């Protein structure tokens, strides 16, 4: 059941890959704008590069998350899905995983942009990948739940970030910190702690949101 849902989601995403390109450009443009906001201060840009990366990723996520329910809303397929004898939870996890993969790819794509714009190179690529995986997982779980909710109301574009942003503060904090340590160095070996925090956040929210999802699309 889950694999079927996941396969459907990935197929949908593959079909709309041109849109992914647009989101990547949006993310890259945001990173560019951040450097203008700070000014040509190479040291400052490097110091805050992790923050910019994650802010860019967060802003882009509002686009991709909202899109993930677009297909359902277009054809009123949400109601149709409810009639099928399928498990709504599989649907949720399928979408959440697909969104997670999408955001991870976006994160990976934005890393070179960050490296170039902010002179934020690092050799700790594996660490960076782990942070991106854990951080985007933290965005994806609650993001998918709220996207399901807001897809069905007016003013959906404003409501999704409004609900999501306060919630993911711990994930954002930890992701930025961990990324920063990967780029700038980790003298106190704090990295493991931040990754643990991210892991705990992900665990809690992947369970809680999956638990609550059926209620959200009921009726």
């Amino acid at each position: 059941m889950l694999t079927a849902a996941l396969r459907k989601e990935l197929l949908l995403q593959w079909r709309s890959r041109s849109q992914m390109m647009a989101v990547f450009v949006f993310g890259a443009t945001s990173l560019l704008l951040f450097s203008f906001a700070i000014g040509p201060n190479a040291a400052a840009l490097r110091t805050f590069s992790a923050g910019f990366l994650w802010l860019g990723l967060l802003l882009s996520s509002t686009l991709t998350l909202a899109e993930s329910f677009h297909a359902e809303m277009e054809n009123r397929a949400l109601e149709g899905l409810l009639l099928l004898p399928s498990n709504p939870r599989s649907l949720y996890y399928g979408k959440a995983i697909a969104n997670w993969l999408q955001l991870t790819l976006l994160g990976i794509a934005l890393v070179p942009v960050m490296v170039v714009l902010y002179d934020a190179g690092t050799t700790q690529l594996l660490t960076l990948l782990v942070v991106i995986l854990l951080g985007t997982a933290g965005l994806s779980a609650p993001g998918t739940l709220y996207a399901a909710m807001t897809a069905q109301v007016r003013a959906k574009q404003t409501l999704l970030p409004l609900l999501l942003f306060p919630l993911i503060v711990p994930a954002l904090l930890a992701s930025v910190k961990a990324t920063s340590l990967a780029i700038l160095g980790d003298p106190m070996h704090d990295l493991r702690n931040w990754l643990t925090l991210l892991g705990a956040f992900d665990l809690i929210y992947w369970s809680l949101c999956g638990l609550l999802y059926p209620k959200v699309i009921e009726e």
Partner: protein
Amino acid sequence: MDIAPPSTTKTPMILLALGFALLVIGSYLGLFVAPAEQYMGQVQRIMYVHVPTVWSWMLCVCFTFIAAVIFLFRNDLKWDARLEAGLEVGTLLCAMLCCQGAIWAKPTWGVWWDWDPRLTSVAVLLFAFLGIIALRQFVDDPPRRAVWSAVATIIASADLPIVYFSVKWWNSLHQTQSSPSTVSSAFHLPLRINAFGVFFVMVAFVMLRSRLATRKLREELV
């Protein structure tokens, strides 16, 4: 779904009067009778209203969370009315305590804001509650609005301890300021009186606001 008619305003009005009376007494004592703090001077008097506000806010948030959970289990719109009240009163208290905290912080730390874990966690919850209140404005169907707000409230409440610990940790890497400790002088009486005062006022607010929410729900369900 339907909902029972609202109750009378007698009890909340009594609580309101009682609460305000206590606040007047407690504040008078705190402002004019209690001695000034040794190092903090007059500014520490702010704690006589700030700490009671924080306590009542915490209770209000607990109440809101419980109302959300009960609603999801029982599907009784009465609890949605209470959730709506808890969200609004909680937001009011939260805004108040952020202002009080910032006003205390300026002369004490020299800045309006510092990444004090408590103040930061509270600010995050404030925005979370505002988001849920905004969500409610855009959903017209009462049962659906109730379910979604309950779900969002539970998620936001679950986040609160995580936010607190992560900010505390994040902040500990820099120097820590002294936290707004409870009044250290021996004069606890104004604090206790004000604590009861704000508490009764808060309960009265939640009751009166639930009443308004109940009335609106009855109109919507007709």
